[in-house]
């Protein structure tokens, strides 16, 4: 079956449009109903960068605000994410502390930073930063090692375990972390390999 890849119809109102090559990678709308037909390379990159930035800022809150408050009778305790990491940091458990720190904090932040580093120049119209390709490649490679959302599930399980014996209150960092997970997921959905690589490759600034 032969089809014409330059014909794209609007999913909302069924009008068929013809796309040129450049139009494929720009933001376009349907002529009749205005529904967005293509996002455009530029927009995709913008979104990735924007979300990466958000992710980094949220991680700041996560690190420095209290995460959870435990109240059991007369006893209060509060833990920040750093406390969670340090809880392990004694002797033989040190590698574990390190692992937790890396998977929850270092990798997600690193990925966001790498993406910003590689893609922000494109948005601003500058030429590629040195090592932008390696940066982008590592951003992709590190994806399975960013376990922020798994941490959230772990938190949920821990809360259930503790709920029976104490009152647990959530701190600012908790919600920041939830948002962080959501933002990271969104960010990953906008990371189309082909789009990003061709953008880098064709950056002639």
């Amino acid at each position: 079956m032969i089809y014409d890849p330059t014909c794209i119809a609007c999913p909302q109102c069924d009008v068929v449009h013809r796309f040129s090559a450049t139009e494929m990678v720009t933001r376009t709308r349907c002529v009749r109903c205005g529904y967005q037909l293509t996002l455009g390379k530029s927009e995709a990159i913008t979104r990735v960068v924007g979300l990466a930035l958000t992710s980094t800022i949220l991680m700041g809150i996560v690190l420095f605000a209290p995460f959870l408050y435990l109240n059991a009778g007369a006893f209060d305790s509060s833990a920040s994410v750093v406390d969670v990491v340090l809880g392990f940091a004694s002797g033989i458990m040190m590698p574990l502390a390190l692992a937790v720190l890396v998977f929850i904090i270092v990798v997600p932040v690193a990925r966001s930073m790498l993406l910003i580093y590689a893609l922000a120049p494109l948005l601003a119209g500058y030429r590629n930063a040195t090592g932008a390709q390696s940066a982008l490649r590592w951003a992709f490679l590190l994806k399975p090692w960013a376990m922020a959302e798994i941490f959230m599930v772990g938190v949920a399980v821990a809360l259930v375990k503790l709920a029976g014996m104490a009152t647990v209150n959530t701190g600012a960092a908790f919600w920041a972390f939830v948002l962080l997970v959501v933002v990271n997921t969104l960010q990953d959905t906008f990371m189309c390999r082909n789009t990003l690589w061709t953008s880098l490759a064709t950056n002639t600034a």
Partner: protein
Amino acid sequence: MSNTAPDPSVLQDLPSPRHDKPGRRPSLIWIMPLLALAVSAGVVWNNYASQGPLITVTFKTASGIRAGTTEVRIRDLRVGIVEAVGFSDGMAAVEAQIRIDKNIARYVDTDAEFWLVEPKVTARGVSGIGTLLSGVYIAVNWDGKEGIKADRFVALDVPPLASFGEEGTRIVLRARAGGQLAAGAPVLTSGIEVGRIGQPSLSVSGTTVTMEAFILEPYNARLTTNARFWDASGLSFNLGAQGIALKVDSLAALLEGGVTFGTPVTGGEPVADGHIFDVFPSESIARANAFEADASPDITASTLLDTDVNGLGLDTIVRFRGVKVGEVSDVVGIAVEEGSQAPVKLRVDMRLSPRRLGLSKGLSDDRVRELLDARVANGLRARVGSEGLFGQTVILELVNLPSQAKAEITLDPDGRMMLPTAPAAVPDADAGVNGLVTRISNLPIEELMTAATLALGNISKLTDTAEGVLAADGMDRIPATVDQTLQEVRSLVTAIRDGGAIENLNATLRSADSALKSVDSAASTLPALATRLNAAADGLQAVVSGYDSDSRFYKDIRGVLRDISTTAESFRSLARSIERNPNSLLLGR
């Protein structure tokens, strides 16, 4: 619609999609980071704005203080938390950085006091047990008024004397150094605890100890200027003219020291904060000092004694009409040249309280001498006396003896006032062991024996002579007369013998002997008695067990034992409930 293949020619003139206007507005995505920034800023600002001030408190040790965990509490309500613990400059002490809650920060002024609350077991009970489970905390006390702000404090070593909200009177106590008073020791009156002592501090001279004491309301109403304090520490064991007295005030006083006060003399004004009281070593001394108000300077006087006196020395009491008016401060041997029987006399120097002697305060030395001279003219003399159950305590007495020859106060070459003396009082011969021994020694046994021997000798000589006379020639002419004489002599001797005089003599001798023997045996049991008394004083167990069960001491001990067993029992039940349900502790159920 038909199923035929689509006609590509239909798709010839397709419209191009619409583009957004150039100069399109920036992507909406940027709202996200901006929002995140705003929220971050909000969180951070909120954190800082709601933060109270940071203060530094210095402690001797950091026992149990942990950054992020140890709280600062007043009346058990959390008002701050330790943020960091570290060394002070020079590693001399530990500094804790404390974040005080904003809403009470204004009370933390220079009057605020901080101290560490940790588990403590003292004679007064167990305190701070809760901190075993919850960790130590820092308690703070303030007066509720806003004063000058401060942000550096030194923690107290012991909890302050008066807690927040306690009303009472603060007084100053002065005691002789070497007592047993410790900070926190109780102040008692009539057996009830009415206050506590603060930290004792040694005076510069090292002889007195000064401490603050806090008397709680409403007991401070009983505190007047006539109140007298005495040391209630330990036991007091008294063997005196009144007999044996064993006193123990309370268990806490026993172990930790304490002071008791009483008011031997009614009257007296209410006491203001800062009034100074002396602490006397025992109740009897305190009561004896009941009339002494302000101490005026002592009068020094001296007297020359002829007799040797064993037991007269420093601190020997000087009495006037039975009341202590002073003490002997020195005893010196003086060589007196002019003709007297004893080449060396004892000069006894005394310190007398003018008030006790009935002299008003603030008199000049000359005036004092005039007044005393007048008394001496009326018969005031100094002499050695004795008191005590066995008369073993030597005292110096000032007595009025109007029958004495006139005398007056003289000044010795060094300007000392010399009081005239009177002979030592004759001990009551009828009283006591002394009298018995004296009576026995007064018996003219020796003379009796000598006379008897002489008489017998004479009688035998007489008999010999008589027989010689009879045996001589020419005695026949007078046999009848001689016989008669002989007869008479014989009957005299018989009469003497029959009269029982010799027996009486023998009997007297025998009873004197047995009297001496009983004195001997009495004397030999005295040491044993003393040993028993010592053993009684040493063996506290025996004393306590036999002590009056109504005393506070006994009650205290019983109370403590009861507390201990109740605590032990509750720990046991707690442990049992934990075993059954480990979550009960956290839940509180």
